[in-house]
């Protein structure tokens, strides 16, 4: 799954996802990616977020909507992403998932749920301070 956020220099935001889902799913199964507020969410007045991982779990918690609402409340993108991961962790400590977040000033962050085989999450960022796309990584919580 790719989840993407774009913020125009005018402050207009957009977010989106595209995926082929999970292997060997039951015919007809739809995951979190195409669900607004789950796979991705954008609001010019607060920011944008996108998620990837166990779609059958993620979609129940609307992670990208929740992250944007945390940023609306003043949390930094990193804290907003971390709080969303923590919410899901309480119910499903072994879920596989990661969230990327950006607020309307262009600050950004990410968070992921730590598993034995998943301790870091890699994502791409490109802004006006960079000459080219930069790969960053966060330690999972």
């Amino acid at each position, binding site marked *: *799954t*790719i*989840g*993407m*956020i*774009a913020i*125009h*220099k005018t402050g*207009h*935001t*957009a*977010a*989106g*996802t595209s*995926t*082929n*889902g*999970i*292997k*060997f799913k*039951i*015919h*007809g*199964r*739809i*995951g979190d*990616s*195409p*669900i*607004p507020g789950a796979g991705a969410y*954008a*609001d*010019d007045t607060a920011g944008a977020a*996108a998620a*990837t991982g*166990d779609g*059958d*779990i*993620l979609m129940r918690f609307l992670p990208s909507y929740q992250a944007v609402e945390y940023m609306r409340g003043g949390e930094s993108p990193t804290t907003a992403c971390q709080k969303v991961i923590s919410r899901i962790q309480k119910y499903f400590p*072994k*879920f*596989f998932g990661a969230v*990327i977040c*950006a607020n309307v*000033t*262009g*600050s*950004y962050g990410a968070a992921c749920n730590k*598993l*034995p085989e*998943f301790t870091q999450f890699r*994502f*791409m*960022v*490109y*802004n*006006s301070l960079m000459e*080219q*796309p930069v*790969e960053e990584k966060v330690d999972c919580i």
Partner: protein
Amino acid sequence: ARPLPLVLNTWPFRNATETAWKMLMCGGSALDAVETGCAVCEREQCDGTVGFGGSPDEFGETTLDAMIMDGTTMNVGAVGDLRRIKNAIGVARKVLEHTTHTLLAGESATKFAESMGFVNEDLSTDTSRALHADWLARNCQPNYWRNVIPDASKYCGPYKPPSILKQDGSAYGETGAHYGHD
């Protein structure tokens, strides 16, 4: 310097980031950037979890999910369980631009896509067919069934609910950390 504009995406899908950025640099909107960036991954089949030829379902078919959201108008276009159309986020953009709906699904979404000019084509490849054949050979393990007969942890379907449903543990089968994910 204000760091805007900004492109951010999950996983190290560099080409998608680059393409989205270039769209912003040559006058495209944030929506255009997201659509063109994600479409790169659909074409390049990024790590096998985006686009055609990946994640075959139990019948061996690859189906696609995508959405796009405009943070200015709060308008959304999305497709779920999209069959036989490669450019899923392109169809989602058409749902946003040309309907007042939010989400179209399945075979009907395919019909909508064809009406918008998208090509109806097989999304399977040798890779996805081999994945599916290997899964069948391993008694369809793992799968996403529970509380059924025959025992889904041992056998392929078709499955039926047992006469008396016995509740098992969690509502979420532990399919392993890296196994089932979008």
